């Protein structure tokens, strides 16, 4: 069932029901006060109406509920109490109050939940919310105090811990891990120093090989804005990798600038190529 149709039904249905009930109860009460209807008959019709409306609310509520017995009982008790204290209007009131829950249940049941979760904005908002809760100390991660930062491990860990940390750094390298890597280069243990140097050299080689390949490609096609943009981006990535000394990073930045300037002056601009901001 499409979401918007089901939502439209959910808002139109109770209003019609309330108006219908108001009319029916007014007529019934008028007949009772003009003694055209006996008291016992008036009460029977009135209570039957309450039971019927409560049933209308309860049965679909059960169908859309999570299947939990407590949920079903809660729906039943809520509608019954409203009907007892406020007659058919109370039953309708109870129905309206539980309707949003039924809608959510139906929503999940029909598989709309995954679509919502795939929405990155929504996820970001939830993450932001979680982060806020953590900062407010309203949310705690179990055993979080046992976690050690990689920098702590390379400072204080055993030889095996340090080697394992460097292995992780190698496989999931980000510029923020460079301080841990550089600290490991000064470790007392030779094998730790060697692995740290190997990881560092591996990262350098990855960048230089990529740059070499992109440079060759760009040289082969001087008019390809796309190739020169990629080359510029590669220089930029290397400059921002945290691996380079300041002077070398500046050289890479200049190379990136030169590549982007080439893109701007190229005779055959590729519309898909845009200078990164």
């Amino acid at each position, binding site marked *: 069932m499409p979401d918007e149709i089901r939502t439209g039904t959910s808002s139109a249905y109770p209003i019609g029901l309330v108006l219908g009930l108001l009319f029916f109860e007014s007529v019934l009460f008028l007949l009772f006060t003009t003694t055209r209807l006996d008291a016992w008959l008036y009460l029977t019709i009135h209570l039957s109406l309450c039971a019927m409306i409560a049933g209308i609310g309860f049965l679909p509520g059960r169908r859309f509920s999570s299947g939990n017995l407590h949920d079903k009982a809660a729906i039943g008790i809520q509608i019954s109490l409203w009907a007892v204290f406020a007659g058919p209007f109370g039953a309708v009131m109870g129905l309206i109050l539980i309707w949003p829950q039924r809608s959510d249940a139906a929503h999940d049941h029909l598989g709309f939940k995954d679509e919502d979760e795939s929405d990155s904005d929504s996820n970001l908002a939830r993450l932001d919310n979680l982060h806020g809760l953590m900062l407010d100390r309203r949310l705690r991660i179990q055993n979080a105090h046992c976690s050690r930062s990689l920098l702590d*491990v390379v400072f204080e860990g055993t030889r095996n811990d340090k080697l394992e940390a460097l292995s992780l750094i190698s496989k999931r390298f980000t510029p923020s891990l460079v301080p841990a890597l550089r600290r490991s280069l000064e470790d007392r243990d030779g*094998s730790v120093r060697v692995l740290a140097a190997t990881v560092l050299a591996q990262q350098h080689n990855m960048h230089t090989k990529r740059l070499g390949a992109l440079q060759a490609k760009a040289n082969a096609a001087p008019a390809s804005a796309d190739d020169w943009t990629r080359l510029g981006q590669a220089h930029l990535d290397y400059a921002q990798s945290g691996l380079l000394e300041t002077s070398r990073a500046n050289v890479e930045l200049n190379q990136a600038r030169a590549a982007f300037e080439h893109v701007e002056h190229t005779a055959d601009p590729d519309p898909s190529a845009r200078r990164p901001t």
Partner: protein
Amino acid sequence: MTGAAPQSDVCLIVEGGYPYIVGGVASWMDALIRASPGLKFHIIAISIGSQPRVKKFVLPENVVGLTDVILDSCPIGRTASARDAHTISQAVQLIQTVLSGDVGTSFEKLIDLVRQTGFGQSALLDSRAAWTAMERVYKEVLPDGPLIDFFWSWRFLARSLLAIVSAQLPDTRVFHAVSTGYAGLVGAYAKHITKRPYVVTEHGIYTNERRIELSVSEWIYDAGTGGFSIGDSNRPARLSDLWLAAFINFSRVSYALADVITTQYGANQDYQRADGAPEDKFRIIPNGIDVDLYANVRRSTDPRPPTVLMIGRIVPIKDTRTFIVAVSLLKELVPNVSAILIGPEEEDPAYAEGCRALVAQLGLSETVQFLGRVPDVAEYLGRADVIALTSISEAQPIALLEASATGLPAVTTDVGSCRDIIEGFAGDPVVGHGGIVVDACNPKTTAQALATILLDDELRAEMGRVMRERVTHLYNKERITKLYENLYASLADNTQTEAVQGTYQPDPGKTPSSKVRGFADRIRAGRSAVLAPLRPFARFRGDRAGA
């Protein structure tokens, strides 16, 4: 496997090197063989099927045989029957123990079982019983990992063990593995079968090198099932754990069955000890070079710019990139500096190309020269002012020793025994520094160290003198050759060893270790006692152990 060899004195066992691959250990082996023309050598070269077996060395005349052991090719063996299921399960259990927690006994049991049953690939890898047993190992070792990855890893490791325990052994007096790992396993296998003495020499520590490879490798798939916690003994196993455990246990087996464990410098022994090597087997025998040859290299007096020399393959482990960046920084301090790179580039052409591109990018095309291989390195040593070595990993680099013998000061990274060579060590008869040791991957300090030496003539001369003296005293090829010859002789013929434990100083009066004495006593007790275990093996009928 190829080649039926005549009898030899020493069987050198090497993994992935001599005579097919050029490198430090391969050059060391070549030099060792040539330095002892009176000894006959046999080579066991371990490789994999896809590795090209084209000789990069001309084998010296005293090499009497070459046997190839191909790790990914083992005998098919006899076909298993339904009655063999229990035996196959036992064999797989033994393989698992050798790969994960052995101290030698399981390896010996595996050798015996394979020889008794005639099992090979057919029974132990391809049969239904082998699959069932492998599944059991999988559930124990990598329960959360992908079966397909475990299967291929297991298959390679198990097949390599079978290839080793069915390898053909030459008739030789002493087995000498030049590393642990697979070479060490072959040595251990030879020791168990022939009961001949077995020496293992480690230049670099095998388990450290494999650990580094595994840490940065991309070929080994890790699904992240092990999580990211460090130092957690309860974390789920990773595939890399299986490989690392195997390599560590290969070393343990090698150490357990070796009679003597040698290395070039003391720091290596800490790692060997940590991997379970018994202290009483330790010896230190450094590398040796032809000191006289290099001491006679004439220093060029022609006018020339200050020259920095780097000798080594253009490969990532030598960190040529750091050297090039260091030269660019050095140029700011010594503007007319010249840098010469000597070494082959074909091993990693992409890296070499990247280095050349870096030189161009840094505007050093006029400063840095790539010479590739040169016929006579000594010629360039005579025209240089300092040698640089920016390697990430080394043991005891021959190039550094050779340059030092000519009186060149050095700037090296703090790897292997470079610090010992440059700064000396406790008990070193030569006092003083012959250069400067710097951190790896640090172009700035490398450049500063090079500038310090290049800009100070007196300091350079003094450092050159210290280096020449130290190398002459400690790393003289004649002395080192004697150490090895005496070691072989002491193991085989009860000759006293000159190898010294804990110091580089020779000590002719030192008695052999208890293990060596035990071996010698057995020889004294009579030829028959030594030969008894060999009788089942007809090819050992020409044994010379008691000669």
